[in-house]
């Protein structure tokens, strides 16, 4: 992820918050954004998350200029490539822990099922960023197989995707040491657990970019350590991890530090 000549102010009359920012956020490393309050740390994170449109400059994700993307393109990037961990978790109190972690999969529509025609004439469904999960039966006659074989396979594939999503959610919760009942409403879990569930949710779609806004703010060392270790692990998987924080514990694990003055 690269930003160049980035400028941003909330309105035309308000002061410029981000001014001529040029920075390459490296893959496989943790970049910590620091700076005094009001310097635009969170604003930068929201710009990188494609929530805000810069006044000028560019934001390249996988070498693609994103600032002129329309809403559906930005949403697709947010659901497939970006994992966002908010400052105060922002979990839906009406969902259970497992439903919260699985929530990003609800919006991952376009990439869920990708139909490929193999060279041997077979069709396969593929989940983006994961392995092919459901080879279809032979379909020599495409037209006739469309109604029978494919519809059956869609259901099969959908169930498999659901199962796979569930397995991944469980795995993430284990990694983040969330030990509450899966069907517990998020309203009933502690602040530390909520932060870990929120990080699990951010990682659910296996994003290549992870944006975290004060992930350890108001957390005890036990919870902070788990979160930082997880972010470190993600960075080691060649992912771009960008954290906004004042916390010295976070700065200590940073590979790069971007200080906004």
């Amino acid at each position: 992820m690269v930003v160049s000549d980035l400028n941003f102010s909330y309105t035309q009359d308000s002061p410029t918050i981000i001014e001529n920012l040029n920075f390459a956020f490296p893959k496989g490393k943790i970049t910590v954004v620091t700076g005094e309050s009001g310097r635009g740390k969170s604003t930068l994170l929201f710009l990188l998350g494609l929530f805000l449109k810069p006044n000028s400059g560019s934001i390249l994700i996988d070498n693609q200029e994103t600032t002129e993307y329309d809403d559906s393109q930005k949403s697709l990037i947010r659901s497939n490539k970006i994992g966002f961990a908010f400052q105060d978790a922002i979990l839906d109190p009406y969902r259970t822990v497992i439903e919260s972690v699985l929530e990003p999969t609800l919006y991952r529509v376009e990439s869920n099922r990708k139909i490929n025609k193999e060279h041997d004439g077979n069709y396969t469904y593929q989940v983006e960023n994961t392995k092919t999960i459901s080879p279809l039966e032979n379909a020599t006659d495409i037209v006739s197989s469309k109604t029978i074989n494919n519809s059956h396979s869609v259901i099969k594939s959908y169930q498999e995707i659901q199962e796979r999503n569930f397995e991944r959610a469980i795995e993430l919760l284990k990694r983040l040491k969330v030990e509450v009942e899966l069907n517990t409403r998020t309203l009933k879990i502690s602040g530390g657990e909520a932060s870990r569930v929120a990080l699990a949710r951010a990682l659910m779609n296996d994003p290549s970019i992870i944006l975290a806004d004060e992930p350890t703010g108001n957390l005890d060392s036990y919870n902070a350590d788990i979160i930082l270790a997880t972010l470190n692990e993600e960075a080691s998987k060649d992912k771009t991890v960008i954290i906004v924080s004042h916390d010295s514990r976070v700065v200590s694990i940073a590979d790069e530090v971007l200080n906004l003055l």
Partner: protein
Amino acid sequence: MARKLFSEIWLVTKRHIGATIAIASISFLMTLSIVLVFGESQASIQNIRDFMDTNGAKTIQFLDDSDIGYFDQETLNFVEAFDNIEYSFETSTVFDVFNSLTKDEINLFPAKSFRGDISKVVQLVAGRMPKAGEAIISENAAHGFKLVGPTGEISSSNQSWNVVGIFKSDEAYLDFKNFALIYESSTTPMPYFYSKVKEYNELPTTQTLILNMISPFGREDIKILSKSLASLQNTIENNLGSFANYILILVLFLGIVLITVATLIDAFLNQKDIGRRRALGATKIYISLLMIFRGALVSTVGATIGGVVSIFYLYFYYLSIPINFLVAVIIFVLIIGSLGSLLPSLIIINRDPLRAIRTP
């Protein structure tokens, strides 16, 4: 995809329970208002139709105002050949007669001459139906003439007729109860005739048809005199219909406004939820559809309950509502629910997601 969306709509419906109750209640009241107003107006129209039918509103009276004399027995036969004419009969002008047996001038009484099937209009209670040159008198007239049976004679200054029967008139022709009816020869020209159609809604077209066929060259001389009841009925029906339409427009306007306000308040109260979804990858269209489908679903539930309640209400008043009409109302309310959710969804999805997320 559909299952996921429906599951999310259900979650939103449960989660935003205040808006759900508000939209459902508005839809319930809208359905109740529409069904009851239409039910009552339809029932009132039916009552008026029944009353009018009993009182002769289906009868057309044609008056020959020309000097030529268009109406004769042939005309009457011709008109009666119409499929939708129940019966026709003619009457002539009224003239005074007296009981020639008593020769009592004090018992002067009005009489109408008639031609055609008068048995459809009056019921014989004694004696027989008259032939040409004979008369029947009403029970009232019989009492006035002090007749003890269906016999006697009535006279004018230069003619006399034997009385052969006593009748009582149908409810629609109560004015005959004060008349003697004299059966005329078919050669006598008649100034006007009545035709009764079978169905009320065929009245206007039948009027036009008869008018066109019996008087191709002198239509301006033929006047239709009995349309007053029919036009009164039309006026009342139109007024009731207009009243129902005004109520419908009012309900439509209020429904959209109230659902829009309820959804908008709900959307602003829950913008953090919407911001979170956007951050996790939901498109604007997805959020918008979620709100619109929720509005449609909850409106349908509210409308269905309203429909069932109104059916029971009308049932207690012995009224019924066509099921097609009820389905149409529910679909109508569903559309209102969707439209009422459209504007708030468009407003909320275009809010700054950052502000939405940071809203406490």
